[in-house]
């Protein structure tokens, strides 16, 4: 019963957030100002008639209230409108770009979490040691480095000087058709963006895991474990780490929400054709339906991931359940 109550309150909260997101998605990008018709016709000399026709086609000649009603109707029926610059429905654009983003951010998330937790546990266990100082220093430095700059650096070293990887994109136009050559080429293109993204985000896992381990250090059950004659490594891996993992669950789930949101910066530096790059392209016009669509999609996934984290956490940690 208590659980149902808990579930209802979490889901209710999520629903309220969703409604707020739906409203702000429409108004937020209109407050920014700017005229899509200007941006779309920036390159090409156009006559007043052509511009008026374009304005009508995009629905920008309607009053704002009508545009909002159209938008609400669309959202409720799952139609996010048509992108100005791609002349294609926003939902199909998001569906097309989703796999690329999940591949990139998903791989980076798995790598960053494993690496970060592994380092964090060891650094925390021997806090103050040289390993601790160096690892925490390195991860924090990478965390503070601008993604754009780090990405260019990675390109310079691994693509240009060592010539090991392609500069950007997801697939080369020269790659022959067929499953294996294409797959291999995508993986080949994947390495540098994943490397960059992992380098930037793994520090959060290091820090959370490290402090979490530190919290466990003084606990009696560790003394008991040692008293049983377990080796130090066993005490850490079998007793301290499982307990310390709990706080990181929240972090992992928060990051899961970001998997679809992608990494706008990483995708832009590497021209990785995912949702982040799509959002960046939309912002440049401003391509209002696409901006609204991507914003809705990102926000929704973060809200869902957060709600999921709350619920899963309750199952993982009995203390929350009884509290």
């Amino acid at each position, binding site marked *: 019963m208590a659980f149902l109550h808990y579930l209802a309150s979490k889901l209710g909260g999520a629903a309220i957030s969703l409604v707020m997101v739906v409203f702000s998605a429409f108004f937020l990008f209109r407050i*920014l*100002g700017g*005229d899509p018709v*200007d*941006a*779309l*016709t*920036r390159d*090409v*000399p*156009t*006559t*007043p*008639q*052509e*511009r008026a*026709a374009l304005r009508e086609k995009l629905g920008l000649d309607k009053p704002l209230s009508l545009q909002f009603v159209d938008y609400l109707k669309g959202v409720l029926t799952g139609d996010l409108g048509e992108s100005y*610059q*791609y002349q294609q429905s926003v939902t199909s654009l998001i569906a*097309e770009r989703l*796999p*690329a983003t*999940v*591949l990139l951010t*998903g*791989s980076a998330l*798995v790598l960053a979490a494993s690496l970060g937790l592994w380092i964090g546990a060891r650094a925390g266990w021997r806090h103050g040691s040289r390993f601790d100082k160096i690892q925490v220093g390195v991860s924090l430095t990478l965390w503070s480095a601008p993604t754009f700059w780090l990405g*260019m650096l990675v*390109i*310079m070293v691994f*693509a*240009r000087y060592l*010539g*090991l*990887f392609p*500069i*950007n*994109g*997801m*697939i080369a*136009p*020269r790659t*022959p*058709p*067929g499953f294996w050559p*294409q*797959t*291999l*080429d*995508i*993986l*080949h293109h994947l*390495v540098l963006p994943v490397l960059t993204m992992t380098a930037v985000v793994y520090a959060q896992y290091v820090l959370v895991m490290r402090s979490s381990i530190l919290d466990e250090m003084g606990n009696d059950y560790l003394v008991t474990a040692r008293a049983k004659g377990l080796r130090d490594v*066993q005490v850490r891996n079998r007793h301290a780490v*499982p307990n310390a993992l709990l706080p990181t669950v929240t972090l992992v789930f928060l990051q899961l929400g970001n998997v679809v949101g992608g990494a706008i910066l990483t995708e832009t*530096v590497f*021209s990785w*054709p995912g949702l982040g*790059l799509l959002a960046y392209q939309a912002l440049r016009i*401003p391509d209002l339906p696409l901006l609204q669509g991507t914003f809705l999609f990102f926000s929704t996934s973060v809200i869902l991931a957060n709600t999921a984290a709350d619920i899963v956490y309750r199952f993982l940690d009995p203390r929350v359940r009884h509290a």
Partner: protein
Amino acid sequence: MLTATIRRSHVMVVVPLLAALACVAALVAPPAAQADEEEKTQLVVAVSQSVDTFNPFMSFFSIGYTVAGLTYDSLIDWSAEDYRPIPALATKWEESPDHLTWTFTIRKGVKFSDGTPLTARDAEFTYNLMMTDPDARASSSDLVENFSSVDAPNDTTLVIKLKRPTNQMLALDNAIVPQHIWKKYQGRIGEFKNFDFPLVGSGPFQVVEFKTDQFIRLAANKNYWGGPPAYDELVFRYYKTPDASVQALLTGEVDIVSGLTPAAFKSLRGKDGITLNRAANRRYGAITFNVGARTKDGKEFGDGHPALKDRAVRQAIHYAINKEELVAKVNDNLGQVGSSIIPPVFGIYHWEPSESERVTFDIDRANQILDEAGYERGPDGIRRMPGSGRPLKFRLLNHSDTPTEATDSEYLAGWWKQIGIETTIQSADFTKLNDMLYLGKFDIIFSSWGVGPDPTSILALHTCGVLPNDASGTQRDTDTFYCNPDYDKLHEQQKAESDIAKRAEIVKEMQKHLYVEAPIIVLRYADTLEAYRSDRWRGFVKQPAERGMILGQQGNWAFLSAKPVQTEEPGGAPIGLLVGGGAAVVLIAAAAGLVVVRRRKTADERE
């Protein structure tokens, strides 16, 4: 408990791996039927602009025009030499004495890439489509609204009858599409994105593969009537950041890069196998004045400074600009001093002031003009308007996304201070700045336009006809709210004149008018900076002949004339692929190995 942990860690490894595989599988295209493994010569061009559609009637972006121009032919081309209209599908044309009937002779023996012959019927079909379908006419409504009929009496003759005489008949660069394919889409042109590859056209290259924001691959048309290209494929490859495209040029991933920053351009100087091209651009950079924002009915709006309605103030400001210094300091000398709104690349129409007409940097002269016009200096050194006594304090608005304009602004404010004008520099991004422009809420603003080979649309920016109907700021067609009957009269004349030499006289007269009246002051023509792999490619024909550009042409001259340098295999890419792909495999194997080792360890501990 222990087994549970092991199973969970097992799941945690397998699930992401499966997810990754699913993503890759979703991304890999279904294998194409053909499998010709022969290495093709590809000319790879770096681009950044997204493609909306390959429907030549619907595209907004210049990349769309470029691709349409390669896939399809038009009746008339713009010459590589000097942007003069020259025969393409039409071998010759005749204008009737009353200027209302134009007869085009269509080239014989032209075939579409699927082997179907191209005839005058296809041109008739295309122009009728534009006349009848509101979507198909969208980007050229001005042109076809003036057509009363388009007919093909036989396979080699096309007759266009007009309502009013116009020289736009010499600018028929519209793509002629194959009737046998496009007739299926009549009535729903607006929804047709033309994504059925390979595209069918009569041009030198047809799109065969397209991956949004990744690349566009075009195959050479070996039967092209102008002679087949000297290589197999033309590829536009996406680099969303300019720095990445420079790196790609250095590694050889791409062959041509355009739109380089002066810094990137300099960094490429002296690199082996790379040739730089500093070309004159089709774009001008200017400042424009709020000469009095008003509607067509003459209702004034906005908050522009009234002194800028006075020609004398604008002329004085013109004298207080050192354009040479701007080009030297801001553009690293990679540009030319500006004079009129039609850049010098369009040699036929460009007007250059004579020595006596030229406004040169002269602070004394500027001060003298303002003194004579009655603008006295106040105690603070700022001049006041005669009558109202309002001080000459102007807002100068620049684009925050164009950093050079911020530097320009500092220079301008410094010079104008010497003539008793105080300048407040404001910065806004492109869209915000346009909002303020069309609401008339500015004094002086930076303005930059790319100009096409036909001068009508750029000249129209300063006519009374483009003033807005109301003060809402939604009609965005004027550039300065300038309106002068003399100028408009010349504009109407030039629109109807089909004799190029006579038209050029009128067009030059109009540029001179703007130069003297100064609603706009053209500061410069910044060069367009390009670089290409000359160790692999040669023979690019530039447009125009003198200081011409390779990319951004009006026509396919560079792509048609490019020739590969060497005959041996390029080789670089496959080796890189093997090494890199190998590295990826090793990484994955190592990760898997780690998991196995760890599992074994736990198993040991269990005993």
